[in-house]
């Protein structure tokens, strides 16, 4: 198989950074691609449906996605995901602060070239985590 067709399975964290928080009962996860090529991949593959599936057990509502191409970022809103939100919630992480890390742990199948072309940050991250 030509090398540009080969794929590898990696945690999303190799491709992106992310941070999450709350707005009432809605959790937000802002995702930032580590390169422009990865951003293109994100736009096609990191869909609201993907995120909804990944958070199936906590997200009772819709997932919306907004694009911020200037930051190579997309922002997900996970509606009805915090057990009523803020002070009403009985969940331990009532503000969804851990959701970004959980999303970044998701494994995805990507073209090998996307990984090799990634940023220096990602390489450093990989080395220090090994």
């Amino acid at each position, binding site marked *: 198989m030509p090398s540009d067709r080969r794929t590898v399975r990696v945690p999303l964290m190799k491709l992106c950074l992310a941070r999450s*928080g709350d707005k009432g009962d809605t959790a937000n996860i802002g995702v930032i691609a580590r390169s422009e090529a990865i951003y293109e991949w994100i736009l096609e593959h990191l869909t609201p449906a993907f995120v909804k599936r990944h958070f199936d057990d*906590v997200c009772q509502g819709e997932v919306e996605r907004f694009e911020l191409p200037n930051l190579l970022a997309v922002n997900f809103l996970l509606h009805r995901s915090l057990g009523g939100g803020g002070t009403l919630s009985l969940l331990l992480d009532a503000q969804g*602060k851990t959701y970004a890390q959980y999303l970044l742990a998701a494994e995805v199948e990507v073209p090998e070239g996307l990984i090799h072309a990634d940023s220096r940050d990602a390489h450093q991250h990989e080395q220090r985590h090994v």
Partner: protein
Amino acid sequence: MKRIVIANCGGFWGDDPAAPRRQVEGGPIDYLVMDYLAEVTMAILQKQRARHPETGYPADFLSHLRDVLPTCAQRGIRIITNAGGVNPLGCRAAVEALARDLGIADRVKVGLVVGDDLFGSLDGLLSSGEPLTNMDTGQALSEIRARVLSANAYIGAAGIVKALEQGANVIITGRVADAAVTLAPMVHEFGWSPTDWDHLASGVVAGHIIECGTQCTGGNFTDWPLVNTYRKIGFPLVEVEEDGSFVVTKHPNTGGMVSVHTVAEQIVYEIGPPAYVTPDVVARFDSVRLAQEGPDRVKVTGARGEPAPAKLKVSISYHAGWRAFGRLLVSGPEALAKANKVAEAFWDAAGGRGSYDQALHQFVGWNACHAPLASCEPGEVLVQFAVRDHDERKINSRFAPQIVPRVLGTVPGITYIADQGRPRASEVVAFWPALVARESVAQRVIVGEDDSAI
């Protein structure tokens, strides 16, 4: 070209008390901005004030101020804070007493911005045709009117700007938009007009980036192994130019880091659509450009703004029942199987999960934050039981006493948390987001004897 430095010294009421001093003493700054008001804080402060009329503002502010006020007064650093809570006048009296105590009363001029507090005028607003409908659910306020604990409009930067113009060097507000405390000094120093949307947007972006303190300087950062140390983490500074562009940085010899990624992560923190609505301007977060200008220095340019919204947001808090938590630790082998057995026995003893408005348990160490990431059974789990109910007595008499007995009456390898004791129901405060016409919020600025409308 004129340049000003604005320092943030905390992301919430309860942030590191060493931060104000670290920001003032770590290098040159022109403004120190301090945030004390989470949504739930307003309800707590209204209750305090109902019992003791001289209270109603976060008392911690005074000890933070004591650390830095003499130096700020001497160096001409101006302080802007929302520490007025629901009693800005009471807060001013305390600050003036502190200044006298420190022997610097002649060098401290307090400015107040008031008018955000709508708690006392809710019924007047309702009868004048402000429905204060819940923005999320569409419900009418009458459904919870009797249970309202506080009501505050999020006001913009104009009042703070006016107080700066009148020479105040400690400016105290109640509820203002989070970014307003950072935007105001820029408007004051650079003379931006109220319709200079792009410049105002730049100020809002700056305010948003630094309003959570160290979350833009390496805290809560995906690539945490790149952060050299979190010890003495530097709180953020913005160095702002007349054209609205600014650099996010921190003082030398502090922990943390400032990179394009630490700043970008904070820009997308707790936002909705990229059109970020504030009382002063709608800032387009999909317009700004970030560039690493040097070590721990990120340049932010290109912010675009759109006209400010016609209405102001109001946050109304109200009593929404009671809740309690109880915890037991279950260790392995077979920690999960045993924990499930404990949970089953606990809910039976506590009258059944269905007998509460809401009830659940989570296994901390396994699935409490999200679905499990571990591929093998945990060595131990903390079982957290939680209930919410309208009846405080039910929680205290049926839920609370049934936690610890499970240590003797269920599986082996179970223990209770030493410092926990029997849980007690605590009040649940919920929030009601609404909109109000700008004309319905009468803002005033008070500096010395001067009391003027905005």
